[in-house]
């Protein structure tokens, strides 16, 4: 007698990819066509579409990793202060007024995210044995508050035009001219994605408990460090490129669990695709609502994600 786990059908994957393609075509066509239309589509909207794909999947994969490592389905890439670190460093670069190219912001975001994760991790390792997860969460929350405060302090001493720039960046912005941003983001996104994709079985093991994972042959400490670094690179580079866009890393794995179950071998690829779809749809929406002007993607996502998060909280509260 054999019983297998839940396994998404081929049709599910095809549908998901088809949905992304349709949403993509839609997002390329939606909005006013200035002339020449070819320039608008290939220099503005196509790179923007690619940027949405990259950021959506990066944030969702990063969310999956943290939900496994913290054994908490409500964890997000921002729980461990990753956004605060990325935001602080990338934001400081903007405020400093240095004319940095896009790659500078991506690098700054990645570096900031890594620093934050290392700091939070070091703090938590000093905590009591067995209280690891709780300490990690507390350290992350604290890191978020400190990072936000320091960034505000910088803003306070900056002049108005810089403040405007940083505030606009904090709202999240997918608008691009040309291929610079998506091309620079591809490297950290692909590296982080490969690290996680090759360790989805490890995510399953670690989500069961460190002791169990360890006695099944997983080098928990090493794998966890690698996965944390991958999660930080994915989320940090994204924050550097488009600003802190929230909720993607939370909502997408949640919705995908409904379809493919909790097995990370299916959940991670499904979340990557789901994140792409959500980001492309949200981006199209942000350009439609107040057309011909557009809304910042971060605001659109938070307005969609906030209520969703509350519903999830209420429902999980009822289950217990």
């Amino acid at each position, binding site marked *: 007698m*054999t*019983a*297998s786990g839940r396994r998404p059908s081929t049709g599910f994957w095809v549908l998901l990819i088809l949905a992304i393609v349709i949403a993509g075509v839609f997002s390329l066509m939606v909005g006013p066509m200035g002339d020449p239309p070819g320039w608008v589509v290939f220099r503005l909207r196509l790179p923007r579409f690619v940027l949405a794909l990259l950021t959506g999947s990066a944030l969702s994969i990063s969310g999956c990793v943290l939900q496994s490592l913290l054994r908490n*389905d409500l964890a997000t890439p921002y729980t461990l202060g990753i956004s605060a670190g990325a935001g602080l460093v990338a934001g400081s670069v903007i405020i400093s007024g240095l004319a940095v190219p896009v790659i500078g912001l991506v690098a700054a975001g990645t570096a900031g995210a890594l620093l934050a994760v290392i700091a939070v991790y070091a703090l938590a390792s000093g905590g009591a044995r067995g209280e690891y997860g709780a300490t990690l969460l507390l350290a992350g929350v604290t890191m978020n508050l400190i990072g936000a405060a320091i960034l505000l302090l910088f803003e306070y001493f900056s002049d108005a035009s810089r403040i405007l720039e940083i505030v606009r960046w904090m709202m999240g912005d997918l608008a691009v001219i040309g291929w610079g941003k998506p091309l620079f983001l591809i490297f950290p996104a692909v590296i982080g994605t490969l690290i996680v994709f090759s360790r989805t079985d490890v995510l399953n093991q670690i*989500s069961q408990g460190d*002791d169990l994972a360890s*006695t099944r042959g*997983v080098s928990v400490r090493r794998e966890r460090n690698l996965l944390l670094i991958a999660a930080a690179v994915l989320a940090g580079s994204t924050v550097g490129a488009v600003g802190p866009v929230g909720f993607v890393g939370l909502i997408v794995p949640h919705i995908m669990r409904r379809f493919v179950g*909790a097995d990370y*071998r299916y959940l991670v690829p499904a979340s990557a695709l789901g994140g792409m779809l959500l980001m492309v749809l949200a981006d199209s929406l942000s350009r439609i609502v107040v057309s011909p002007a557009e809304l910042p993607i971060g605001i659109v996502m938070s307005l969609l994600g906030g209520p969703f998060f509350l519903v999830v909280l209420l429902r999980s509260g009822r289950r217990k």
Partner: protein
Amino acid sequence: MFLSTLRLDDVSAGYGTRSVLSGINLSISPGDICGLIGPNGSGKSTLLRAILDLGVTVSGTIEVCDIETSDLSDNQQARIVSYLPQNFNPFSRLTVAETVLLGRHPYRGRWAFDSSLDLEIAGECMLETDTWHLRDRIFSELSGGEKRLVLLASALAQEPKLLLLDEPGSSLDFRHQLNMWLLLKKLSDKGIAMLISTHEVALAGRYLDSVLVLANGEARAFGKPVDVFTTEILSEVFDVHLHVSEDSETRSWIIVPEMEK
């Protein structure tokens, strides 16, 4: 064939500089069940963690199936020794079948999906532990006793020669506790050796082949239950006046604290 499934030779263990266990010697033959008994904090869990190399500093020799554990890779050891811990994530949203299949990890390469052999073995382990009917349920929604059985099935999916169990019967009611011991007895008949930390002294005596009594991190006694479960030894170890008598009818022990005077 190996002579002893587990052999400890002058093993001391601790966390960092804090020493918890010292001078432990033990040998368990294939198919034997050894009980680990002692008061809270006497080092029972630490001994299990030392054998499993779970963050414990160890000195001395630990051998499983006549091979020193330090010579085994993590994966090799996982194919010989498996573990039923007290601490696990009770909120896992995996199904029971998926949870049991996780025990196949040491036999799989990276990125591998469940082979037909994996599915077959997981199915057998679920039948053996009577969890087959739960296979499509979500782990987090099971009762405490069911979770324990599912994790035991997943430990069996590792096809272990040695099974380490940390208080497998704690917080189970009479029927589930008895079923757990009967199941462990059945598994031992198949040649799996076991080291079980437990507080259920009375019932365990029926099923244990040998008992190691720990007190303050040292071995106080080792032998058959009938030699070890005495008023003198248990009273001293648990630091309370106990009245111990063997009940011939049920072949188990009646152990109660004496009336305070």
